[in-house]
């Protein structure tokens, strides 16, 4: 009897294997596991068997029954999968058509992106970000920055004045972000480490001058701050913006509100500061000089501290440095934008190049 059961297993397994469709498999199931199946009959008749046979026959029979059930189940799964795959294989689309456009993603203006980059770099160096008014008093834009009335330095910047009945020229559009140096010092005692990004205005318009442009001002005031600290700070910033191999050059200059004053340049990132390209031709970016002019800086003039002495700025106990540069200039260099005016034209064909 046990032998017969083992034969049934072999036969059954073979038939399960051979079944090609779900219907055939169902036939096999009925034949081997159905109510009228031989195995079912054997198991049903166990009670009639001699006592010593009941154990082996029942054990083997149930084992075979389970094995067949498992084989059928796994075969069903296989057949279903195969049929599904067949159906799917016939259900075809042209995958080469373009995808449905996602809701268009917009773009952040390159000036904003560049401003944020500079902010993030300076935040990393321990600076706060501040904003100041663009329509400003003469006092903050000039007088408190050591440009006395009638000083020719005022003429260095073509100033937009705000119309007033008395023609006293006391209100203007700030010509630089520097007025916030004074406002920030009025508002908080040293140590002070802050930057001011924002719009500035000068009465000048051509391919390299825009009557409206953006600057970033930096100011660091505390005990023992030196011109060498200015150099280190600018160098750290420029390397974040233009790459780790950049160098800085500081050229003495004149600004009324810093003393000593410098202009600072960054080594050219296209030619590596050599002024010529690999093929020996002159580098167009730095015009063969190897350096790119970026901005002005210097040690805060003691006269400026004099205007905020009440807020705790004593030139004998604190020193400080300040710097300023144009955001457009950085954006033009980083992104190869040739004409300043493109930034304010807002042509989407330009804007969409900056994610």
């Amino acid at each position: 009897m046990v032998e017969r059961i083992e034969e049934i297993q072999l036969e059954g397994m073979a038939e399960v294997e051979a079944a090609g469709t779900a219907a055939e498999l169902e036939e096999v199931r009925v034949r081997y596991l159905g109510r009228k199946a031989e195995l079912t009959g054997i198991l049903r008749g166990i009670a009639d068997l001699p006592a010593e046979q009941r154990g082996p026959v029942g054990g083997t029979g149930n084992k075979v029954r389970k094995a067949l059930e498992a084989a059928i189940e796994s075969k069903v799964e296989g057949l279903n999968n195969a049929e599904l795959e067949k159906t799917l294989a016939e259900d075809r689309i042209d995958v080469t058509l373009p995808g449905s456009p996602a809701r268009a993603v917009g773009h952040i203006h390159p000036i904003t992106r560049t401003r944020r980059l500079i902010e993030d770099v300076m935040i990393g160096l321990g600076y706060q970000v501040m904003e100041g008014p663009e329509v400003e008093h003469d006092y903050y834009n000039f007088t408190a920055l050591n440009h006395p009335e009638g000083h020719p330095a005022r003429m260095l910047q073509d100033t937009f004045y705000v119309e007033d009945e008395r023609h006293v020229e006391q209100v203007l559009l700030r010509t630089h972000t520097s007025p916030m140096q004074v406002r920030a010092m009025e508002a908080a005692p040293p140590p002070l480490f802050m930057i001011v990004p924002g719009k500035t205005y000068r009465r000048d318009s051509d391919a390299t001058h825009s009557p409206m442009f953006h600057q970033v001002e930096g100011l660091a005031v505390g005990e023992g701050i030196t011109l060498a600290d200015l150099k280190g700070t600018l160098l750290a910033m420029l390397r974040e913006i233009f790459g780790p191999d950049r160098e800085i050059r500081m050229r003495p200059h004149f600004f009324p509100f810093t003393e000593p004053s410098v202009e600072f340049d960054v080594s050219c990132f296209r030619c590596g500061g050599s002024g010529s390209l690999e093929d020996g031709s002159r580098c167009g970016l730095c015009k063969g000089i190897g350096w790119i002019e970026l901005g002005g800086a210097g040690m805060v003039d003691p006269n400026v501290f004099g205007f905020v002495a009440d807020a705790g700025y004593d030139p004998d106990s604190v020193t400080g440095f300040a710097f300023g540069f144009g955001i457009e200039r950085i954006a033009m260099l980083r992104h190869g934008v040739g004409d300043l005016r493109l930034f304010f034209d807002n042509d989407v064909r330009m804007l969409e190049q900056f994610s």
Partner: protein
Amino acid sequence: MRVPYEWMADYCDPGLEPRVLAEKMAMTGTEVERVVTLGPPSAERFVIGKVLEVEKHPDADRLNVCQVDTGDGERTIVCGAPNVAAGQTVVVALPGAVMPGGMKIKQAKLRGVESNGMICSERELELGEGHDGILVLGDGPAPGTPAVELLPLAEPVLELEVTPNRTDCFGIYGVAREAHAISGAGLAAPPWDGGPIGPGLASEPDEIDRLDDPVGEESTADRVRIVVQDDDLCPRFTARGYTDVKVGPSPLWLKARLIAAGMRPISNVVDITNYVMWLTGQPMHAYDLDLVPEGELIIRRAENGEKVAALDGSEYELNDRMVAVADRNGLAGIGGMMGGSVSEVSESTTTVLMEAANWNGPNVLRTSRDLGLRSEASARFEKQLHPDLTLRAQAVAARLMVEICGATPMTGLVDVAATPPLEKPIRLRSGRVERVLGMAISTDRQAEALTMLGFGVERDGEDLLVSVPPDRFFDVTREIDLVEEVGRISDLDRNLPATLPSGAGRPGGLSRQQALQRRAEDSLRESGFDEMVGWSFTDPAETDRLRLAEEDPRSSTVRLANPLSEDQSVMRTILLGSVLGAAQRNLARGADRVALFESGRVYLPAGEFGPGPLGGDFPGNTRPPSNEPQHLCAVMVGPIDPASWRGESGATDFFALKGVLEHLAGGLGTSVTVEQVPGIPAEPFLHPGKSGPVVLDGRPIGWIGEVHPSVAAEYDLEGAVAFEIALADLLESSKVGEESYADFTQFPPVDRDLAVLVDEGTHAARVVDTVEEAGGELLTSVSVFDVYSGEGVGEGQKSLALRLRFRAPDRTLSDEEIEPVWQAIIDALAESGGTLRG
């Protein structure tokens, strides 16, 4: 300031290529804009020639055929100049020479006659502007001598960009001293103190000293009377008289130097005044003394409306803030600006009054601006010169007048001076340089640097006591200025270390408002909008285009007194115009849709500040003159999404943009509503039925809606939707970072839907309000999920389908518990005129 290299080399020849010198100057504080070469690119093949014979050209009336000795023999040269004559010493460009502008001289046949070179004119060599034909030199130089030995050919000229504090570098001698300090090359004595004054001119300081010895001859004081009525505006006025002056053209070297410096030679007397100015930095003026009645000049404030005919041929009307030089009859010049034509030096002049005066810088600056007149003199005086420079100029001028004009100086100067500025040595404390620069420089080296720059230096223990020469007097007034002087010529760039400020633990960062601003801008970017940056200034007619009424506060603008153009003459009070303008330009260039936003300021002459800097409330003791809150404005035109093969996307509409606004608010952890309040008129630039104020906590913070068709038409748009809100107000309500966790897992909510019929004009928000009010605490949210009117719904009515969500924080709600709340909601709806459907 143009500095001809050979002129500077009279005093200091650093022995450097001009380009190398330029580089070194740039690294010590004087930018050299460029180095130009005057005249031909090279002096080669330009030689002295002697004209031996001149004959008419056989076939051309106007041409001459000349035989010229050029040292290497006789050559035939065809020359068109009418003034060529036998016996002249001339400059010949031999074949191979390159003229200014690049033309190369070649052997050529001119109307059949072979010509072996060219006889040059002043103009062709860029030595002068004469139109009189070829340049004729005095006798002497042998034929074949290189012309460069006599004339400045291929002359390098440094164009300096002098910063306004460095009045000393507005004179050649000051630049030479700078070159000396930079290079260490020797420095000659100054021209006012025995140094050279020009090529071939004797240095005879003794001669000049004798001029001031009032023995015998005519003295200036006898012929000249100077009255200074306002010594605040004219701190010093010096004059010297000359007789026997022979006015005529200047010698070639002087003309060439002036041309190289960028000035036009006029006559020897006038040229001397310009030459002295260029050399010493002190402007001068020459009067025909015979045309000054009684030799009297009065320096006084002008009267309002007083007119003066100036040397430039123009007439200027002065006012009483300006200083004038008057003679007995009227005005003879504008102080510090320009002389008058009344006593102008001419060919018939024989007596001259040379003026070297000192003027009040700020006053000259203002006069220059008010008159729209800027001269080389005013450009120097406006920076405030020291009164003592007048004496330097008089000394140099006297030597030149004698040498060049054959003049006889009168003895003595007339010198009217106010109290001179107080001279006081400046103490440079030991260690101060290091403390400011962060780099040690020995006291010896500091002293050496300052001495080379012309300062007087004395040691006082470890400190230095430094006296300042007059041409640096107003620039270097404090210890810190000396630190700069020492620093800038100590090879700062190479030697200065790069360090970071000490003092750890400084927190850097964005303010909450700044961080949220970025989030807001990024939200609009995510919603498909391109950020733009518009002009802060606009056209005054923009308020009309936007149909703003005159009494609308946005019609009062901050106006510029000196705009570049009328189009940019007022500061914008609303961003919408900028954004619509950008949309217009993009559509005109072929875009089929635009979604633009701007995060920028508006400028209002007055008004309350919003919160923080984005609200216009900036740090500092003095309130800003205007109110400049940050606004956020978005505009959509055309289809919502880009076109695709799957079909057209819907046209943009109010709800598309409202979704963007809600997304923006939601992303900031806050919410806004849009309301139409009866009695409050719609924004004039919006569709009155499809717009409304954006409301936050019951307060309007902006607007949203379809742009009014007439306004859209102004910008060539067929339709647009837009919103603009005050950013600070929105950010202020943000709950970002303040969220507290509420458990949501334990007790499930119960959702129930209802549909209610209401009048078509009823706002959905009002129905939601009614439901929320009646729903009490168990009702946690209500949303409108369908709006229907038409079949099955009565005329003039609409059906709103609402989803209500009930939840309790501490238990699972049973139907029994919800039932009374549900009933209350239905009652409330019925009471407010709604009818429950189905």
